[in-house]
């Protein structure tokens, strides 16, 4: 738990995190790591959903439907945003752990929750009006 800032062996990247504060309890660092990975898996699941919607386009054999294509692109871009945000949040959290300051609330979680709700409703409407 010693301060490692002056240690020349401690050339850890990114400096924006490791240049401040003290080493936190390793358990907290590892938990933060697992949370980051959970967000990355969520991002990959969003992308998989996008590719899945596009596969319906391919399976229909009637040419691409613009509604399906836009839903697929929306899901894929949401996945990209989610993975970038995951890294940003991991950095913020690790910094907060090192400086012993309170953890900021998750900004992405409510957006993702409501966003997925809206996408689910849109998919339901698509299903009802066009058989998807």
């Amino acid at each position, binding site marked *: 738990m010693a301060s490692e800032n002056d240690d020349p062996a401690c050339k850890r990247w990114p400096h924006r995190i490791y240049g401040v504060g003290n080493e936190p309890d*390793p*358990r907290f660092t*590892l938990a933060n790591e697992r949370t980051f990975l959970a967000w990355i*898996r969520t*991002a990959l699941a969003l992308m998989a959903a*996008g*590719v899945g919607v596009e596969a319906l386009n391919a399976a229909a054999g009637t040419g691409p439907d613009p509604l399906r294509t836009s839903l*697929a692109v929306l899901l894929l*871009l949401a*996945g990209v945003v989610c993975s970038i945000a995951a890294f940003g949040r991991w950095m913020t959290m690790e910094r907060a752990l090192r400086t012993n300051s309170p953890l900021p609330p998750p900004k992405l979680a409510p957006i993702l929750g409501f966003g997925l709700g809206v996408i689910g409703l849109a998919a339901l409407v698509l299903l009802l009006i066009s058989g998807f």
Partner: protein
Amino acid sequence: MGSEVPDERHGPWDPGLQIERTTLAWLRTGLTFVVGLMVLLRLLVHRSAVAAAVCAAVTIPLAVAITVLSWSRHRQAERRLRADDPLPDGVLHASFTASAVLAGVVGTVYVLLM
């Protein structure tokens, strides 16, 4: 807290098996990459065998590298904790993020072109 824990100062040796859980999370995420990759390649083969082969040649070594790096990170974390050194840094986090962004871009290009 079990009294047989070797050293109480070292949090990760508590009954929570922190390093194992974290390594499994890394491997699970790597596996998700591999599965997603296979689905995408399977879809691409229908459209263009050449595109699928190029995509496979680029991404399969990437997926293997991710898995190997996740495992070596596990050993590094074990070693450092035993030596009371700080844990590994954020390079692998950035690599995973970059791979996920790459996957999203490839997927978007696929959807827009097909």
